[in-house]
């Protein structure tokens, strides 16, 4: 088929545009990834000589190891608590009409509007007023507040997609409401629940702003430890950490995708 020059131009300019957008999005990651292999102890681009030693430093620097385990603890606890609480709220909002339903919905979605530093500051003030120590529970509490709306939303969407007739069919077959919940509703919600948990976990593990306010040196998470590191050193260790982080997250998401379908995690509005 013969194309007119105009159509050809349109076709190629379209392709170039897509390539440009992709490059634009990926550029920071690419620059950092390449910098990680720089042999010299400064962040320059492009590197003149190559080395893997910053990867070794990333693993051996004690604050990072501590931050990683702190972060993992906070992430697992915060996402799990948010999963239980958020799902319960999502269920209530989806299934029942009650007086404060809209208010509850608004409050639970408010962390999307309230900035993380406000949450961090608020939790910090609360903690000092009530003399609660700045331990991990405090960090976990702040993280629950931040990831709750995401988990709630994910569960809510799953409930929307669940065919109510499945539950009706079960009840006609003699199943009590509790039995329906455990044999039909929850098994069918599991992909959505796991997706919500995973989404919350990634957010929580990456969270920096609020964590900076509520953590101490003993409870700092990996992003906070990285921030403190970059204030002292300007070597490519952080670039190496970034590469590790991207590889690990990509691997986890690939595994999750093959089990759950990534569309369910990212395309949260799709019905």
């Amino acid at each position, binding site marked *: 088929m013969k194309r007119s020059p105009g159509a050809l131009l349109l076709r190629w300019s379209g392709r170039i545009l897509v390539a440009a957008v992709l490059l634009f999005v990926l550029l920071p990651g690419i620059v950092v990834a390449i910098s990680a292999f720089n042999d010299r102890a400064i962040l320059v681009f492009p590197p003149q000589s190559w080395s893997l030693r910053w990867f070794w430093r990333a693993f051996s620097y004690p604050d990072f190891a501590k931050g990683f385990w702190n972060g993992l603890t906070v992430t697992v606890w915060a996402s799990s608590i948010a999963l239980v609480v958020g799902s319960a709220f999502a269920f209530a909002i989806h299934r029942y009409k009650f007086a404060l339903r809209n208010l509850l919905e608004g409050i639970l979605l408010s962390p999307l509007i309230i900035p993380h530093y406000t949450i961090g500051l608020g939790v910090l003030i609360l903690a000092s007023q009530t003399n609660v120590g700045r331990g991990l529970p405090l960090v976990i509490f702040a993280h629950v507040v931040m990831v709750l709306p995401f988990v709630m939303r994910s569960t809510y969407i799953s409930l929307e997609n669940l065919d109510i*007739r499945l539950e009706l*069919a*079960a009840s006609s*077959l*003699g199943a*009590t409401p509790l039995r329906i919940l455990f044999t*039909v509703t929850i098994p*069918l919600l599991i992909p959505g629940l796991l997706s919500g948990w995973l989404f919350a976990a990634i957010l929580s593990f990456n969270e920096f702003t609020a964590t900076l306010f509520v953590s101490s040196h003993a409870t700092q998470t990996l992003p906070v430890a990285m921030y403190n590191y970059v204030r002292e050193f300007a070597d490519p260790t952080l670039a190496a950490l970034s590469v590790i982080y991207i590889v690990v997250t990509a691997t986890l998401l690939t595994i999750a995708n093959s089990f759950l379908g990534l569309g369910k995690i990212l395309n949260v509005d799709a019905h």
Partner: protein
Amino acid sequence: MLMRTNQMAANTSVAGSDKARPAVQLDGVTKRFGDSIALHEAWLKIGSSEFMTLLGPSGCGKTTLLNLVAGFLEADGGEIFIEGALVTETPPHMREIGIVFQNYALFPHMSVAKNVAYGLKTRGVDKKEMARRVDDALALVKLTGFSDRKPRQLSGGQQQRVALARALVIKPKVLLLDEPFSALDKNLRGSMQVELKQIQRELGVTTIFVTHDQGEALSMSDRIAVMSAGRIRQIAAPDDIYRRPADRFVASFVGDANVLNGRLVERSGDAAVVSIGDVRASVPAASIAEVSIGGSVDVFVRPEHLSVTSRGASGSLPGTVTTQVFQGGHVDLYIDAPGSARDHILLRSPGIAALSSCPVGAEIGLSIGSDDIVAFPPGEAP
């Protein structure tokens, strides 16, 4: 008045064996959604083993009625009985009903066997008997050997069979079918209808079937309840519904009907005579009781009760053929007959003779058969 007679007809002409106690009984059941009335004082008695169809357009309240019997909705007024027991406030899981939904609603995370076994598990049936009954149910719907499949690995027709097996395995007091054929393609639909009817008759299970498809309703039912705008308009056997519709709505919703402009000529007892142009026809008098002699009436005539004669033949209406539609076994003629009818008249001519004898533009005479003509007071909407 009309409602009352229907109700009495429903109470007396119950088909099936156990006449003493209806399998399902609705006493003036009403359901509102906000300000709108979804179901207005429904009175209905369904005999044991009877196949009762709720027929009507979408929004007529037929699905609401089904959901009320199932217990998925709570009635705002009236009482519901299943096998004589009051169940108006009984939750669905204690009503012992089987239901097949339009989309089948099979549990996607369970195998075919687990789906069918679900209702037996909730009843605490022991493993051995459960396996036997699941096998029997699958054999009944001709799905032996499909036990380990997941619903998504089955075709639409197979999924429907599983849904049917799942509903029947618990030996329900009533089987509810919510438009079960509408998701199937046309060929499969026909064979599934025959099969379902066979199974229903074999098991003798009381069945309530909801559909908007009058063909399905006429072919499968023992009796049909025609519904519109939240009310039951007529309850009768399929042939009665077709031949003696109780009102304009039933006459136009079930089957094709031509509406001819007529006049009431005389009334004697149960029968009346109406005239359409020069043609006279006998109709039941009850449906036009409030029309005075000489007043205008709408006369409903089925397309197959019209036939073609020569123009000017005595007892015929003049008309002009405007369209011919060949339908295989018969020919549909659309005839323009100004004065006799507001719209085109549809005439169903058996065989293929009309293809050549009544070309488009032919000026013909229309004669009206003597059977099954009904008249109603004039009105716009059905």
